[in-house]
């Protein structure tokens, strides 16, 4: 019988080859044990605070607020974390867990390279071997991050199968895991894949919403009216939403990468254009054709360029607790430039999708409303690609 703990409504599950089942069961048991373990939590808190720089700032974007003329805007600055994105939260948790389980080797997939860099970082810190799978196209788009991973001691494998992007990197990491389970932990980077990953990753990322709630209570004495985050697999969004799920007054908004538009084939907006299916270990929404072949997706953002979405998001969409909106490349690039000039913050192109939607939403809200945007990562990695998008021929 399907493990009830691994379901979010009808979504989730453990659709993996039999070879992996005991590894998933072992992981779930270890997680159950260590999540209640005081020493484990103390060690993780130490790493979060002293190493990764948590809590991250909740910054009042006064200029942006004035410029848009509506709701007050706060930015949750996950870009200020060590390694430059929210990915470090999950990775420190999983790497520490893997270490406790006696694993000596971490493997990971990466799209933009942020999760790969975070995993390579944790592996270096905890003396573990690290192999990162990255779509070949992404190794070109994100060459700087490839170098960073190597610098940190990881081996980066360019994945040539399929479309050479994030989904193929996930497939290849899963294949690698089935061939080497004994000493290897698959450090999955988002709230996706088979149970228990969506839950584990969410729990480690939930630090984001826990902090937003406490920080905003201190600054404003109340809850926000909306929380906005970008969604690929959906880990920074799930982390940003989690502690607000029961606060019905808080609108939760996930921004999907629409690429060149949801009316085109060059899109990665799963909720807007996909339908329910079973892939990469989970039942959720996927971009696919009439026969269930997974669609090649497209976004300017390598980190959102994924044809699926985490199962908890699928459930939040169905129940209406969160809503998911498409944001195009053009809108995201405009927002990337806008936040740079308005607040002096160069956000990741992924996070710029959330900024883009906030620019539409905030002016429609009264001045006493509060919107929080999660800036999931910093944009240094994207500068060359955005310059090229604008027709400037610069290379790293």
């Amino acid at each position, binding site marked *: 019988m399907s493990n009830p703990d691994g379901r979010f409504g009808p979504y989730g599950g453990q659709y993996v080859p039999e070879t992996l089942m005991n590894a998933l069961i072992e992981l779930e048991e270890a997680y159950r044990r260590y999540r209640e373990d005081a020493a484990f939590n103390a060690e993780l808190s130490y790493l979060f605070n002293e190493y990764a720089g948590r809590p991250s700032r909740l910054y009042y974007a006064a200029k942006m607020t004035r410029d848009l003329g509506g709701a007050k805007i706060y930015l949750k600055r996950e870009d200020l974390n060590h390694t430059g994105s929210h990915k470090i939260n999950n990775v420190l948790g999983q790497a520490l867990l893997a270490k406790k389980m006696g694993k000596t080797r971490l493997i990971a997939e990466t799209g933009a390279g942020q999760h790969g860099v975070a995993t390579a970082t944790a592996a270096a810190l905890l003396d573990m071997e690290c192999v990162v799978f990255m779509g070949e196209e992404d190794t070109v788009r994100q060459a700087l991050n490839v170098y960073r991973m190597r610098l940190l001691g990881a081996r980066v494998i360019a994945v040539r199968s399929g479309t050479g992007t994030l989904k193929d990197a996930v497939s290849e990491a899963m294949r690698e895991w089935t061939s080497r*389970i004994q000493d290897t932990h698959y450090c999955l980077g988002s709230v996706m894949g088979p149970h228990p990953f969506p839950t584990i990753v969410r729990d480690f990322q939930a630090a984001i919403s826990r902090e937003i709630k406490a920080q905003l209570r201190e600054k404003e004495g109340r809850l926000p009216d909306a929380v906005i985050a970008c969604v690929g697999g959906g880990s920074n969004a799930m982390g940003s939403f989690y502690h607000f799920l029961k606060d019905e007054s808080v609108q939760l908004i996930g921004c999907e990468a629409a690429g060149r538009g949801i009316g085109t084939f060059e899109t990665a907006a799963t909720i807007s254009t996909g339908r329910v299916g079973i892939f990469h270990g989970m039942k959720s929404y996927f971009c696919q054709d009439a*026969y269930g*072949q997974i669609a090649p997706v497209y976004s300017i953002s390598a980190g959102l360029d994924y044809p699926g979405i985490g199962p908890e998001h699928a459930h939040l969409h169905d129940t209406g607790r969160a809503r998911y909106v498409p944001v195009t490349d053009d809108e995201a690039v405009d927002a990337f430039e806008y936040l740079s000039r308005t607040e002096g913050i160069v956000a990741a192109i992924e996070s710029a999708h959330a900024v883009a939607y906030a620019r539409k939403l905030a002016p429609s809200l009264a001045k006493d409303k509060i919107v929080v945007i999660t800036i999931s990562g910093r944009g240094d990695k994207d500068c060359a690609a955005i310059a090229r998008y604008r027709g400037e021929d610069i290379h790293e």
Partner: protein
Amino acid sequence: MNKIRNAFADGKAFIPFITCGDPDLETTERVVRAAVENGADLIELGIPFSDPTAEGPVIQAANVRALAGGVTTDRIFDLVRSLRRDITVPLVFMTYANVVYSYGAEKFIRTAQETGIDGLILPDVPFEEREEFLPLCRRYDISLISMIAPTSAQRIAQIAAAAEGFLYVVSSLGVTGVRSEITTDLAAILRVVRQHTTLPAAIGFGISTPKQAEEMAALADGVIVGSAIIRLLEKHGPDAPRFVGEYVKAMKEAAVAAGQ
């Protein structure tokens, strides 16, 4: 009455895997006939999937070739109808959960039964998720075939006890593909299997040579070969049926030798 057991009736079974539509369905049909004429006891027909996470590079490439050639689930059902005009050996589909789910699970399983399919292998549906498809498979007399892996350990008993059709024993860790050596203690796994079921068990993953076929057939009731056959298709394309026929003959003889 499901006839998968017939494949194992006269001793050791040889089971080839063929990706439908690689390089085209016309070739697939001739390859299946060549395999049956040369002693194949059951045919595993692969419905290609865009992202086959349990496959190694050889079968991944076959999936790409087949999909590039425009094969679809509906056209594969037509192939099965055509094969069933004269082919009587059991036929099972091997594909991924999303291919079945997105077609509409009931429509897929009902059509499979109507066209003459006997079983379904879904490598990304483990024991815990069988309920997704099992009730429908039972309703339409399609055996939902379970897999046992080298890592299954204490899970073998429950999987074997609840199995249908035959048991697919995965020889090695990792994905499909030719291996020079198989090091799993398969004898130990099969001892546990036998304690919990009377269904036949076949070993697959990594088998390519007659010597390996003989060794594996000595342990189990049948041998499944995929990548080695796909390689012949990759090399010979539309001329592959003759080569597959010769290969199946040699492998079947090796398997039979193990039973004597």
